[in-house]
């Protein structure tokens, strides 16, 4: 099953931490966003393999945008 990680708010992509193919556990960091003058980690909610990272560092993303897809 594919689990899509969506952006919750408008943000800059500050760092991409995980890569496609990585095995992740709930709580593992996928990317770090920058918004509200803070660095906000986006964490995996499910265990699985990352099949896609849909953002690159420096991207501006908005609420509802896909950040990553995890296959479990």
């Amino acid at each position, binding site marked *: 099953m594919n689990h899509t990680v969506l952006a*919750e*708010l408008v943000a800059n992509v500050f760092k991409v931490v995980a890569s496609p193919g990585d095995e992740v556990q709930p709580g593992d960091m996928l990317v770090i966003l920058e918004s*509200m003058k*803070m*660095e*906000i*980690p986006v*964490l995996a909610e499910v265990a699985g393999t990352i099949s896609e990272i849909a953002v690159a560092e420096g991207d501006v993303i908005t609420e509802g945008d896909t950040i990553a897809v995890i296959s479990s």
Partner: protein
Amino acid sequence: MTAVTTQAVEIAEIDPRDVEVRLNLLLDPGSLVPLHPRDDSGLYAVRGMVNGSPVVAFCTDALKMGGAMGSEGCKHIVTAYDLALRERLPVIGIWHSGGARLAEGVEALDAVGLVFQAMIRASGRVPQISIVLGPAAGGAAYGPALTDLVIMSNAGRVFVTGPDVVRSVTGENVDMESLGGPDTHGRRSGVVHVITADDASALSEGRRLTDLLAAQGSFELASLGADPDLGALLPENRKRAYDVHPLVSALLDENTFFELHAKWAPNIVTGLGRLAGRTVGVIANNPLRLGGCLDSPSAEKAARFVRMCDAFGVPLVVLVDVPGYLPGVGQEWDGVVRRGAKLLHAFGEAVVPRLTLVTRKAYGGAYIAMNARALGSNVVWAWPGAEVAVMGATAAVGILHRKKLAAAPPGEREALHAQLAAEHERIAGGVARAMEIGVVDEVIEPAVTRSRVAAALAGIPPARGAHGNIPL
């Protein structure tokens, strides 16, 4: 051997949806006392104990006309509420019901309405907990919704009109689960406070919540043990967001934190737990989600929680790390002003002991909304280095000194900005100024926070708000 075999057969013959089976799982063994003989009304009301605390409980009978509610059954509920109000007992309702009995027509509607009225009369006076174990439709949906806390098992469904009606009226194709299942109500609508994997855990979570509200205990400061260093639970990088749950759990007695509305509006964390043995309510910004910003659902979620705690005399601990209100057209159109006002109102009217701790920052309007001194917080503390301001000093001088900064040579601009920010911090921001004007009482060390919070709350005279708990 024979006895064991017989017992196994008996258990297999009793339907797990039987009202007595369900109520016996909720209540202490052997404590169930019927309030009326079992009948065909589709409802069974009883009294009993939860962890030794007396309670009133009722269960809709899923095995009789799908738990549909008629006038007889509704009378049982109203009588149970009368008893609960007279004896000041919590009421726990177990729901599995298709709503009002069609055959009874308007008489059933009137009876369901009288159940609602009984719930509203009891609101804020005795704790009301609902446990939804099956479909609860129509009138049966609003029953749980009127109560203080709603628990839903994986099989629970709550909706006003079922999938068939929805399809015929709007053409939307939806099954019962996506229309009103645990994920829908736990994450999207906020109707349900707690979702569980099965019926048994829904009933045991109901017991835990009942215990937290019915047997609140008292602060036993001697029971505290060594203080944990709560500061270690925050990232070193002050700009980095973090999950606030470990901080909440470490502040409370071990394994006592019971989160409510965990998946809905996760940028604010609300829940009950015990501190030095006494039940307290915790409200905490969660920087990991939306940066910890307040927005319209989170303000509403916290407001309802504050009012529930106030109604039942549960002291409040408020952990503040908030960058402000979430900006955006969506928020304004979603009524962030109206729904945010609920949180101001809830804190402002609360009379229970209240303590606010600013761990990192409290900015702008959100500073006030998070139980500021101005709203009557008994105690306001800050951790070393915390910021209390209209906004961060760097951002503030960017606005206040826009022209001056623009006029500076590009090479010197950054240094000037930093210098102005430091000056601004001295004059307008920072905890020092907040302490001068009496809106922060003290800077306390993270390593003594747990015991200091318990001692401070223990020292404030207990009180309890006199108001209902409208499901905001």
